[in-house]
């Protein structure tokens, strides 16, 4: 059964990298669990932001979705078909429907190719494999049209990447990602390497393109302001797992997971009055090593609200039941943090109300025993 509305569904995604030692013969001495069981769904036309601190596995997740990293386990269902188990020929054909915008515009463009050839490359690769039919004249026309759409002058077509600034280079990268008319864009921190003033230009360009072309975005970022602006839904990652998913509005208004709360409390507020009241939650300790397998919740050592149960079992990502949440959070949690969360939550309650199913579909999911049944 394929749900037409869902473009991408990721189930139980794991990417483990082997740690090898030895000079003559290499033996495996362990695994880095970069991504350790990630689930999410992306509806058509939506933009999901994956946020988290560096090293939490968000880029690896994106690369695994695009099958640029080998999956250790899990399914990546793109339009109902599992990319993870696809044979190469079929996968290569499917690749034209999802494209990547890379983080670093200095490394994502081949310095020895002209701009027009860089943008045309995806077309040429797929035309060469017979996935699409395109003559050189059509390719040239399409490239020029896209350059114009992405804010690049047609005169730039024969230039080399070193002649451009970071923002312009990122526009070239975006044009390349769009040239095949993809359904999904995987944007791996597309603005984090850019000046703040350029960031907004690029974000607006992406937003316009999304509206115009009906694109779906998997948007990786570590900047909460950027994802809040760009994404309709946000997934927060910690140590290779998603700990909370909610609509952008809801997550910012009423974060539930203690990690999300800490993360959001670090964002300065533009309103001076609210900024004065902002209380930063400072987490103790460092992110544990992803190469050590531990039972229990990955966040438990640093969690200000850890319980005994968190030591023994790992929580799973579950829909939040607003009624129960209020009680549990209010009861089991320190009064200030939990209480504020619940109050705000009530304000945003229009999304769910008493309707548990609607709530789950709007997708506020959290992986924490505070909100478990």
């Amino acid at each position, binding site marked *: 059964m394929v749900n037409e509305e869902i473009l991408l569904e990721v189930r139980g995604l794991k990417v483990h990298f082997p740690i090898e030692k030895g000079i003559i013969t290499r033996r495996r001495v362990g695994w880095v669990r970069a991504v350790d069981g990630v689930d999410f769904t992306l509806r058509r036309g939506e933009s999901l932001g994956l946020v988290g601190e560096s090293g939490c596995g968000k880029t690896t997740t994106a*690369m695994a979705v695009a099958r640029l990293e080998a999956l250790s386990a899990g399914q990546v269902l793109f339009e109902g078909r599992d990319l993870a188990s696809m044979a190469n020929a079929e996968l290569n054909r499917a690749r034209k429907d999802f*494209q*990547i915008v*890379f983080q670093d515009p200095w490394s*994502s463009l*081949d310095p020895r190719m002209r701009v027009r050839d860089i943008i045309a*490359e995806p077309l040429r*690769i797929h035309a060469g494999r017979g996935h699409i039919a395109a003559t050189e004249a059509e390719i040239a026309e399409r490239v020029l049209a896209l350059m114009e759409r992405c804010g690049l002058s047609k005169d730039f077509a024969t230039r080399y990447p070193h002649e451009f600034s970071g923002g312009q280079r990122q526009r070239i*990268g975006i044009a390349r990602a769009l040239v*095949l008319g993809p359904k999904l864009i995987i944007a791996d921190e597309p603005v984090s390497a850019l000046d703040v003033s350029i960031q907004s230009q690029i974000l607006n360009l992406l937003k316009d393109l999304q509206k115009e072309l009906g694109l779906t975005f998997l948007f990786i970022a570590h900047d909460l302001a950027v994802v809040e602006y760009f994404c309709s839904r946000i997934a927060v990652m910690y140590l290779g797992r998603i700990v909370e998913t909610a609509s952008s509005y809801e997550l910012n208004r009423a974060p539930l997971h203690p990690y999300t709360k800490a993360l959001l409390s670090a964002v300065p507020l533009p309103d001076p009055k609210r900024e004065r009241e902002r209380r930063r939650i400072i987490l103790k300790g460092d992110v544990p090593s992803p190469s050590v397998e531990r039972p229990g919740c990955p966040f438990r050592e640093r969690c200000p609200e850890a319980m005994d149960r968190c030591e023994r079992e790992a929580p799973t990502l579950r829909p939040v039941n607003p009624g129960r949440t209020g009680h549990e959070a209010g009861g089991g949690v320190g009064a200030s943090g939990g209480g504020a969360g619940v109050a705000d939550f009530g304000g945003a309650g229009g999304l769910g109300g008493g309707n548990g199913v609607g709530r789950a579909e709007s997708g506020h999911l959290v992986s924490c025993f505070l909100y478990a049944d």
Partner: protein
Amino acid sequence: MTLKAIGKNSIAVTGIVIIGIYLLTIALSFFWLPFDPVKMDVDHLLEPPSLATGHLFGTDEFGRDILSRIMKGGFVSLVISLSATAMGATIGIAMGTWAGFLGGRWDHWLMRLADVLFSFPSLLLAIFVMAVLGEKTWNVIIAIGIVYIPQFARISRGAILGVKTNDFVRAARSNGASSSFILFRHLLPNIIVPIIVQISLSLSVAILLESSLSFLGLGVQPPAPSWGNMLSSARKVMVIAPWTAVYPGLAIVFLVLGFNLLGDGLRDLLDPRLRNLR
């Protein structure tokens, strides 16, 4: 890269002109030489350069005309230098690119092999190969070529490792580009600069290595002339007859200069970032 672009690059043009003069002179040597390069002349031993005798560069300790020997030996030296570099570069680049691109076990063992070759001083390695293969001109090429293999392998592997992590490689992969596409379209063009520098260096070092081998009696066998064995035989009379060493030496110097200038020019021409600087 067009002819016009090369014409604009004065460095490359100078290199081409120098190499062109050598090639013309060597071509000429097949049809005409001032004297017979291997005929001894006991009446004119160690004569200084002079117009009157016709020995423009003088004569050596056997009375043979040095200019004729340089012209004749140039062919041997140039063929050895070009072939040995071609052999070392082809095998070495293939090995290094393969190792760097595939990584893992291939990389591991190919580089250990290169380490073994590297652990011998290059001259010692060349002597060893010559001793095994025997003293023939062809074997000089093979010996120098083998010395070059690990050098080219290391350089191309290192360059590939640096380039292959770039996102433009990932971008090509994300569209299902084949490994050979990535190798020829993205990787090799981006490692051309260090390789060209290494080639121009190797062309010159080959001439010097050939001289060393000939000097030790393992290279081009007398009486056939090569620049290397001319230099080595000149050593004995260099103090009383400096021209016996100076002219073959100058022949080497200018050819090496020509190769290096051409290499520099090509490097600039092939790199879009440097193309418009001059």
